[in-house]
């Protein structure tokens, strides 16, 4: 991308923006003096992890930081005019005209009760005196511009009736209805599948080419790399580094930037550490320790190259669901795979491809309508409930939403005790059957997943996402399983935290010779962790094989599309 800046005033210029909330707001502001500017036809990406203040930045530029927010800046101008201390009325006149906003999940960002056509027409209704007919025409035009085919019918649909991509397009259409010089896109693609993500990014890029200034807010460097001209890294309310995208991605200065870059799994060979090697930090640590140069980790235990025998095998799995209406749907349609000891089988697919159902089948949480799952050479899905229970210790599971997988009433210690103490559950609240052996095991597990004993008493609710995921891994390991089934274990985590968790899994695999069934929508992750890959679509495995081979030379067109869509660093 070129750096050429459009003529005229910058779409937005911010100098020393400070935003604080509530009473103590001034003492410890959420945004602590950030400065940036976006020229017309330019895209500035603000990248940071959750809690770094990205969204507040976006909202501050719209005067929507919130009633009890204290916003101050040396300069804050939209389209060349100062917007500091605007009254609510004046702000209203500018919102939508001088700046448009695109939020993350269009399903909830569009009024589910109103036709998208109306939502899009809103800004026209509010800022122009176009008649209904004129507005309608303009709406169709907009939808066409954001690439929604046969707009005429789409306008009458509601958010719920559109696909994720369509929704996002509609939302963008609403934001650009009045061609605002600045478009703020807050994590516009996070909730989307890779292929759709690519399309949306392409749409934004085209808008940029048309001269709109874009402020892209994201947690994912890789994503922004695709369209950003410049990148600003936001960390704890400060912009720690800012510069041309190309340099930022290739020659990062600031440790935080490096850490983020390093954490991107895409194209990182199997076993390469993604996170900093430290006594596994509990959360994106405030003082980020020195980054050790990434190097190839020691090749895993001999097991890896030894003759593989299968530990988990699925044969022709089929699962049907009947929708409320009574219509049947094939969630899983003849899926077969083998998981060899000590290896990782990655299953990748977009939403609705049947990944999760496959995982549940593998865990024998649902009965397959056809086919069977064999665990360590024994019938698993077909076995009696009692039989299955005997086999389960051989199998551990890690879920996407760790929090909901913990009994809200239990503390970390109780959770782990339950897992360790086999039937300990029988004796009411975990504390009841205190056996020092159990206690020791719990501590070992904590240690294994790099959590401090201090957390034992805490409720999972009060832990950070990374910590929760670690606890759930610890629980999965409690029964000394040979197999871990991980269903989207990292998809709700920040990149760096994701990196730590991935590394942790990798370590554990090597130390314990675990076999992993790793399910994710994120090709990058899959590529990084897998020995074998299976690409799923519409309940079928469209392509499977050795990871290296599949990623190097995908055969199935769908796989090729997926790979093509993966956001990569490097130009």
């Amino acid at each position: 991308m070129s750096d050429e800046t459009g003529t005229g005033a910058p779409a937005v210029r911010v100098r020393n923006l400070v935003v604080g909330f509530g009473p103590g707001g001034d003492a410890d502001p959420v945004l602590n003096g950030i400065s940036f500017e976006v020229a017309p036809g330019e895209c500035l990406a603000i990248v940071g992890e959750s809690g770094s203040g990205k969204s507040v930045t976006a909202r501050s530029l719209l005067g929507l930081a919130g009633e009890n927010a204290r916003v101050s800046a040396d300069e804050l101008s939209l389209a060349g005019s100062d917007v500091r201390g605007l009254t609510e009325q004046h702000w209203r006149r500018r919102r939508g005209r001088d700046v448009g906003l695109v939020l993350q999940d269009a399903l909830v960002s569009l009024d589910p009760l109103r036709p998208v056509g109306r939502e899009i027409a809103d800004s026209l209704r509010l800022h122009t005196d176009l008649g209904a007919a004129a507005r309608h025409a303009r709406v169709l035009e907009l939808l066409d511009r954001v690439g929604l085919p046969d707009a005429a019918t789409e306008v009458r649909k509601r958010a719920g009736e559109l696909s994720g991509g369509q929704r996002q397009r509609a939302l963008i259409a609403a934001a650009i209805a009045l061609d605002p010089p600045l478009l703020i896109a807050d994590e516009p693609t996070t909730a989307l599948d890779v292929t759709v993500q690519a399309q949306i990014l392409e749409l934004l890029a085209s808008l940029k080419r048309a001269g709109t200034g874009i402020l892209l807010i994201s947690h994912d460097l890789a994503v922004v790399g695709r369209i950003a001209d410049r990148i600003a890294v936001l960390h704890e309310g400060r912009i720690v580094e800012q510069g041309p995208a190309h340099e930022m991605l290739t020659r990062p200065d600031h440790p935080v930037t490096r850490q983020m870059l390093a954490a991107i799994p895409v194209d990182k060979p199997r076993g390469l550490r993604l996170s900093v090697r430290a006594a596994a930090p509990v959360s994106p640590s405030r003082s980020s320790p020195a980054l050790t140069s990434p190097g190839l980790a020691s090749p895993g235990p001999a097991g890896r190259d030894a003759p593989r025998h299968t530990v988990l095998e699925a044969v022709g799995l089929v699962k049907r669901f009947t929708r409320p209406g009574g219509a049947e749907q094939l969630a899983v349609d003849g899926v077969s795979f083998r998981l060899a000891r000590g290896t990782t089988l990655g299953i990748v697919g977009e939403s609705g491809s049947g990944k999760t159902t496959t995982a549940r089948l593998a865990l024998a949480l649902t009965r397959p309508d056809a086919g069977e799952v064999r665990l360590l050479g024994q019938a698993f899905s077909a076995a009696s409930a009692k039989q299955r229970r005997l086999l389960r210790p051989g199998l551990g599971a890690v879920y996407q939403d760790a929090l909901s997988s913990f009994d809200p009433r239990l503390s970390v210690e109780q959770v782990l005790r339950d897992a360790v103490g086999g039937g300990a559950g029988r004796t009411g609240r975990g504390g009841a059957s205190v056996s020092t052996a159990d206690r020791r095991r719990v501590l070992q597990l904590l240690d294994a997943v790099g959590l401090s004993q201090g957390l034992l008493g805490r409720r999972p609710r009060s832990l950070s996402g990374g910590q929760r995921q670690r606890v759930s891994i610890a629980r999965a390991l409690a029964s000394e399983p040979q197999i871990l089934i991980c269903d989207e274990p990292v998809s709700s985590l920040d990149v760096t935290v994701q990196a730590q968790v991935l590394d942790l899994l990798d370590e554990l695999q090597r130390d314990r010779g675990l076999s992993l069934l790793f399910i994710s929508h994120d090709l990058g992750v899959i590529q990084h962790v897998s020995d074998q890959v299976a690409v799923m679509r519409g309940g079928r495995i469209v392509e499977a094989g050795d990871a290296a081979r599949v990623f190097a030379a995908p055969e199935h067109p769908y796989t090729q599309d997926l790979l093509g869509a993966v956001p990569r660093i490097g130009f």
Partner: protein
Amino acid sequence: MSDLEIQAGLGRSPRANRQHRPPRRFGVAEALAGLFTIFLVTAALFPALVAPGDPLGIDPLSAFQSPSPAHWFGTDESGRDIYTRVSHGTGSSLLIGTVATLIGLGLGLVLGTLAGMLGPIVDFTVNRFLEVLFAFPGLLLALLFILIFGPGVATATVAVGLATAPGYARIIRGQLLSVRSSAFVEAATVLGRSPGQILVRHILPNTLAPLFVLGTLGIGQAIVWASALSYLGLGAAPPAAEWGAMLSAGRTYIGSAWWMSFFPGLFIVLTAVSATALGRGIERRLRHA
């Protein structure tokens, strides 16, 4: 739906947001509610402590006295001290409310558990049954029951219990189903726990925890209902110092002695309000703690 389901549902409101809702700290309302509840409980257990007088002691010559230092809430047509009567009535009113709630909860628990645990067929049946019960609006169910077993405190109490049962049943069922299908129950399964263990360790505790709150909310409603029945002359009978009965007795003299019906009514309302406030408070604490 039942008023209970609404009340209960409200406790589960989404997390607070700075902009519109005040932080869910221990509010003044809850504090006041707490104080009043303490008073009620004291009055119920040791009425003499809060009101030394005799609730039935008549004094014809000082009848119909308006509130005064001597008689805080005034006196009734037989010169009985209203404050004393209201205080001594607390016991019976709370008892009625509590027992009715327990009956309702008990029945609800049975029905709810049947529906929640014994698979789709039972669930379907119970649900239909509940629908049928819901087709009798609360008071009607109570009236029907009284028609059969005749008026009186006992019947009124049971009647209210019955009338509230369907609400409880549906809440409990819902709770059970959501817990059963929750991720942590699945996790326990994956850990190889037997259904029995899971039931004891996870499902029951997580289902029953909210019942306490439900009960608190319910008692308030139950008292209002029971007093309504007494008011209609189908519950407690005078000269019993039951709030509803006192209120209906007082209504005859509403033109000349408003205090006779005002204060008993006030206590009914305050009780119900306190119950609600406390229930919500506890609910929030259970959730966001």
